[in-house]
């Protein structure tokens, strides 16, 4: 079976806010090149930013000895971004619902919710140690082949 991947890029970065901004920028560029429209590109970039914040802040806890990896892949059908950390692992089922009345005024805890809101698929994989998030945004039929 032929490989349908049309583009692929991978980054390994330190656990810093500069890395968050870098990964976000690459995601924005990638989504634009993949043909997503002006409404979708910022949403994809924001989802990737939030996933990278999780990796840097909650996963690696800014540990200089730990790295994050970000990989970007576009195919005829979708853009797929993977963000991985080397932290203790994240169980998404333990993350409180930010829309619940008791959480609505919390000052944090909306990152994973926004990732899920903006992407078509979000999968968590435990790496022992670490967590990998796979974010998928499918192209709408009209954009296939652009």
């Amino acid at each position, binding site marked *: 079976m032929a490989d349908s991947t049309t583009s692929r890029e991978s980054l390994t970065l330190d656990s810093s806010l500069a890395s968050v901004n870098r990964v976000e920028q690459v995601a924005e560029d990638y989504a634009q090149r993949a043909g997503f429209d002006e409404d979708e590109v910022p949403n994809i970039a924001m989802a990737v930013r939030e996933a990278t*914040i999780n990796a840097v802040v909650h996963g690696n806890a800014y540990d200089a000895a730990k790295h994050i990896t970000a990989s970007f892949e576009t195919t005829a059908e979708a853009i797929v971004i993977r963000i991985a950390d080397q932290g203790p692992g994240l169980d998404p089922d333990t993350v409180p619902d930010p829309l619940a009345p008791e959480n609505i005024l919390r000052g*944090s805890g909306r990152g994973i919710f*926004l990732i899920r809101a903006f992407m078509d698929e979000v999968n968590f994989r435990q790496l022992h140690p670490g967590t990998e998030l796979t974010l998928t945004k499918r192209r709408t039929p009209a954009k296939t082949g652009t």
Partner: protein
Amino acid sequence: MSMKVKTRQVDGITILDLSGRITLGEGSVTLRDAVRDVIAKGSNKILLNLGDISYIDSSGIGELVSAFTTTKNGGGELKLLNLTKKVQDLLQITKLYTVFDIKDDEATAIAAFNE
């Protein structure tokens, strides 16, 4: 990448004109410090003008919520002004749109503090 704040007073209301990005790190911290500074100076009626905010992430949303609760818990009021469509969409997705008092006209916002 950074956020800037300009502070002015209108009819006893402190208006913070924010521009740039409210994101994890510098932007969120700048907003937090600005609101704390206003409250420390004895004002508890705060209008955040977000008209020139180009981008906000989950940390920035959290900072807006914290500013709102801090002001309210101190017996004051915090309102939002001039939301861009992007920020408006984010507040709707996160169900915060009805939590904040949001205005799109400064005079109306000022008047609302004195109702």
